[in-house]
């Protein structure tokens, strides 16, 4: 096919559940490509000499190469091609912000629509899994060296996956009763089916990774114990940014005011939407307000809708262009009827006599000069306060560093916000201890956490081999 013909094919749409139907269920929203659509979409790739898409990808997935394999119809080979640099394509294809990564740099995007790289990544990974084509990779001979991975989020899973292949004896310690980190407790089923995360973890276990759940390192065991008592040769800390932030405004401790972490954990990890079959309850708001503009906010808002809210409003202090959420999620949220109240900021929550939230007072904002993040700083407009009615408020304004583990490690260097200081290989100030993912960078993305895991795995391997 020549370039002209290729350019004639338009970007293929992925079928989705109808907004009015999906707003009432927890099933996945985009339904996936058929093999035919996938091949058509993959044909759009121009096979650029210098493929820009790759540069946009934080782990340099071999994009044109895997697209070519799709065109040739060898979907399992395409999946394996991706897995050369990215161990979790079924996850990344669903949750990466492609519009600001690979698809942002794809040359086709200059004039028209970029290749739907994310959707194709999802397609091949699903194809491989659903057709039982996943092969357990060959392991290098056992090295008789033990590595402990603390936390089973994307960074920890990556470290474990890379090191088990190299012949290490790898154990993951996870505080919660299910592995996967944010992929399990944060991102909802309708965006990332939990069966996919379970399959990824299963794949590691089949390769020999030991998984110890319900182990809170710092409480059940210290990192020192891991070295001295359990005899680990190196430790990777991938504990995430699991500390909910609040705004410190009046009324935030009223009941029916949730952090997004709590709200999403109750729903995704504890399955509160299946109460009472699952025993954890959740307040059912009719008129829900979610504060923030990231993925966390969108996920909370859409969960509220799915648990029966009649009205869901997102209050965000900046403008739409500055929302950090994935484009697709904002689009999906709006399609489902979620109202965006941009350039507004809560100043107070007001409760009833029982201590449950009833109203939110907000102030209007305007955009001023750019701040450190380069985004225009929102400034309040004096005298513009107004009041919204609401019966459930979710604070989705971000997360910080959870001190539970780090407070038990006085020699570990932290920055002023409590995140672990690590170099580009994940090396911390303590010998034999690596760190990566959100606990180093602050809240970031799945693929960045995986990238950090990859670097750390390499560095741990050379440390154990050479002692450096």
């Amino acid at each position, binding site marked *: 096919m020549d370039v002209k013909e290729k350019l004639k094919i338009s970007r293929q749409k992925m079928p989705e559940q109808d907004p009015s139907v999906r707003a009432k269920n927890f099933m996945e929203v985009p339904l996936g490509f058929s093999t035919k659509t996938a091949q058509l979409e993959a044909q759009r790739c121009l096979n650029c000499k210098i493929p820009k898409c790759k540069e946009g990808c934080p782990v340099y997935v071999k994009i044109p190469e895997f697209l070519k394999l799709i065109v040739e119809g060898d979907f399992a080979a395409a999946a394996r091609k991706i897995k050369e640099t990215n161990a979790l394509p079924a996850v990344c294809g669903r949750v990466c912000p492609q519009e600001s990564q690979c698809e942002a740099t794809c040359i086709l995007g200059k004039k028209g629509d970029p290749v739907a790289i994310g959707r194709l990544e999802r397609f091949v990974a699903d194809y491989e899994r659903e057709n039982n084509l996943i092969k357990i990779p060959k392991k290098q001979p056992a090295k008789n060296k033990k590595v402990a991975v603390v936390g089973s989020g994307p960074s920890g899973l990556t470290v474990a996956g890379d090191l088990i292949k190299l012949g290490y004896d790898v154990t993951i310690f996870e*505080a*919660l*009763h299910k592995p996967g980190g944010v992929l399990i407790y944060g991102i909802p089923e309708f965006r990332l089916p939990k069966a996919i995360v379970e399959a990824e973890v299963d794949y590691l276990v089949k390769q020999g990774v030991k998984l110890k*759940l*319900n*182990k*809170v390192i710092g*409480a*059940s*065991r210290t990192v020192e114990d891991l070295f001295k008592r359990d005899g680990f040769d190196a430790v990777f800390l991938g504990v995430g940014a*699991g*500390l*909910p932030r*609040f705004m*410190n405004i009046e009324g*935030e*401790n*009223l*009941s*029916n005011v*949730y*952090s997004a*972490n*709590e709200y999403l*954990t*109750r729903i995704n990890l*504890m*399955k509160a939407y*299946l*109460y*009472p*079959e*699952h*025993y*954890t*309850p959740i*307040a059912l708001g009719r008129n829900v307000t979610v504060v923030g503009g990231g993925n966390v906010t969108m996920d909370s808002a859409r969960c509220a809708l799915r648990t029966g809210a009649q009205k869901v409003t997102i209050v965000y202090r900046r403008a739409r262009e500055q929302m950090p959420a994935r484009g697709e999620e904002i689009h999906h949220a709006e399609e489902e009827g979620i109202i965006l109240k941009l350039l507004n900021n809560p100043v107070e929550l007001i409760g009833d006599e*029982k*201590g*449950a939230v009833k109203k939110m007072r907000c102030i209007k904002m305007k955009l001023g000069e750019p701040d450190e993040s380069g985004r225009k700083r929102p400034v309040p407009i004096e005298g513009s306060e107004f009041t919204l009615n609401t019966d459930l408020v979710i604070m989705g304004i971000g997360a910080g560093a*959870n*001190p*539970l583990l780090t407070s038990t490690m006085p020699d570990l260097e932290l920055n002023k916000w409590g995140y672990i200081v690590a170099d580009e290989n994940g090396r911390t100030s303590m010998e034999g201890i690596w760190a990566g993912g959100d606990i180093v960078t602050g809240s970031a993305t799945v693929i960045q956490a995986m990238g950090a895991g990859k670097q750390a795995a390499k560095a741990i391997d050379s440390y154990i081999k050479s002692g450096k």
Partner: protein
Amino acid sequence: MYEIISKTEVVPNIYELIIKAPEIAEKAKPGQFVILMIDEAGERLPFTLSDWDAKKGAITIYFLEVGLSTMTLARLDKKNISAVIGPLGKPVSAEKFGTIVLGGGCYGIGGIYPIVKALKEAGNTVITIIEARSSYLLYNKEKLRKYSDRFIVTTGDGTKGEKGKVHDVVKIMIKRKEKINRAYFIGCTFMMMNCFNETKNHDITTFVALSPIMVDGTGMCGCCRCLVDGETKFACVDGPIFEAKDIDWDILFKRNAAYSQQEAMIYQFHSCESREV
């Protein structure tokens, strides 16, 4: 899976549960708690560690049947539960402070025990007071007596010991100008608040063990937040034992009632259902 070594209804509605959890038994300190899950569909349930034995690898908790989860735990005939997580929370510091009053009610009669023991072993003069509505609801007496310099029992109906509650005894002690350096209370929120109301103006450093609703128990969700000294604190990591003078009780009561309607309905529903079978 964690093995249940024994489960005993020690007095009506209060159960002693001994579970095999060697790693927790080895690390546990007084004032800490564990989170249990009965099975995958269960809630994450916080319970105060009452005793542990590193040699046997066993931990003991006492729980009160109040709702769906504790009812299920009480009636469980399986020999295993799916998760035991801990030890969680900040332990109390067991130093020598002088004369200490320790009060327990309800599950707190179990919960106060490790603190009684640790403070006694640290060389303090320990006065333990427990309360129950009636004599048949008292338990754990011998263990507490063993580590107490004075051991006082109170009952609401006067069928055993003093008639009244822990706070009544504390009130009398203060009136008699007995020297008290510190006080610790564990029980329902109302009991702890009543006790603190007696000690607060008498230069007695008073600690209480808060029991806000929790989910993860590791500081990740913020569900257990309390207002302490004007600051938001997470009871699961900053507590659960806090100095009483700094606590905003009103918020605590209201947040604890957040799910009471749903819970009451489901509890009744399930109780009826299981009765029919």
